[in-house]
């Protein structure tokens, strides 16, 4: 309910109002300042020209009526009533030149508060009355919409790549360690070779002379080891004789 309207009725028939009606009215105020503002408007003059004294009288009368009807009145309405009663007495009593602020100044401040609330109330109404987006003016009903496509910018450094590859290979190397590719002379190979070559040499011959000619140091070592074991095997079988004059000295071989 609009408090201003209800107030008009109330003003016209101050004696006839019913208790429930007044309750309704009290519920309609948004605090004592709102009530004061409505009462001030009933003076039908510019807010800057209202009579504060008359306003105070109106407010106190309203509260007194409410009390008479045994209505519950919120504390802030009573606080305002007490303050207004004090203001009224200050305004009526002989001037106390020491008072700071003066009663006139207090009255002006009250007036300013009423103006300020009134101004904001009007501003709110003017805002609500504007052409509002979605009520009076409309944005496009079916905008296609703008899309932002997030694209990952993947980053990696060359070092990461190399290091990762090294790590992979280090991790899986045993699985791919391929012995077959190493240059070796197998024991069988050495046996055949030494046996075949011995058939043509009856003199003591150094074991090294049975080795194939090669630049590959790895293969030479393998051939030497295999040939040595082959020589031992052939000696065990009684096919050859072995001789060595001193530890680590040359190993001599001849057909038995």
């Amino acid at each position, binding site marked *: 309910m609009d408090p201003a309207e209800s107030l008009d009725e109330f003003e016209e028939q101050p004696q006839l109002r019913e208790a429930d009606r007044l309750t309704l009215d009290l519920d309609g105020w948004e605090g004592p300042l709102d009530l004061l503002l409505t009462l001030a408007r009933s003076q039908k003059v510019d807010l800057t020209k209202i009579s504060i004294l008359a306003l105070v009288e109106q407010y106190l009368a309203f509260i007194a009526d409410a009390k008479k009807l045994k209505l519950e009145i919120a504390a802030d309405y009573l606080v305002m009533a007490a303050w207004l009663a004090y203001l009224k007495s200050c305004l009526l009593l002989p001037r106390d030149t020491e008072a700071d602020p003066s009663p006139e100044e207090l009255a002006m401040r009250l007036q300013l*508060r009423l103006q300020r609330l009134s101004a904001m109330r009007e501003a709110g109404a003017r805002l609500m009355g504007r052409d509002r987006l979605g009520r009076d003016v409309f944005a496009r009903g079916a905008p296609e*919409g703008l899309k932002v496509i997030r694209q990952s910018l993947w980053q990696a450094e060359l070092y990461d790549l190399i290091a990762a590859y090294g790590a992979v290979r280090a991790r899986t190397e045993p699985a791919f360690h391929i012995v077959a590719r190493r240059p070796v002379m197998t024991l069988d190979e050495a046996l055949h070779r030494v046996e075949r070559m011995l058939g043509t040499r009856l003199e003591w011959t150094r074991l090294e002379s049975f080795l194939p000619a090669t630049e590959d140091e790895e293969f030479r070592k393998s051939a030497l080891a295999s040939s040595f074991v082959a020589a031992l095997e052939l000696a065990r079988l009684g096919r050859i004789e072995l001789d060595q004059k001193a530890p680590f000295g040359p190993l001599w071989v001849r057909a038995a």
Partner: protein
Amino acid sequence: MPDSVRAVEAVLFAAAEPMTPEEIAAHVGEGAAVETALGALAGDYAGRGVNLVERGGRWHFQTAGDLAHLLRREREEPRRLSRAAVETLAIVAYHEPVSRAEIEAIRGVQISKGTLDVLMEAGWVRPAGRREVPGRPLTYATTPAFLAHFGLENRRDLPGIDDLKAAGLLDPIDAALAEMGQGELESEDEGD
């Protein structure tokens, strides 16, 4: 029509939300003279059934206000605001940034919990930092969506703001309201 103007027109038509010139530039390319294109388009659309408007630094197309009667959707008013919410919104808009205690001082009554929430949910009011005074109260201000909704280019467009300023009705609240039964309100506030 130059391609840059066509591009800005298309992007703004397709956009679901008002856009800043920077956001537009991100779509049409940095090279395009967005501001110039916006000016040209606003001119093209002036007086048409659809207008290009700027609201708080963001641009959008909207139907012309004088055609509201053809389009108005009576039954679905965006938000039916309480009187307290309307007043609170006006106080925030005209005084921002403003604290809850200051809003209460102007209205002479405490704000119920939901009032500011409703305004924030509508996207019209936002928290705007704390005031560096004892108690460091949170302050509130309006948003670009507030300006867009109420058709204001910026806060200077607020109805009657110059007159209110001249009348001293938008001065800092503390100065005017230091006295006058305010003690009670303030002590209530502390308990908040």
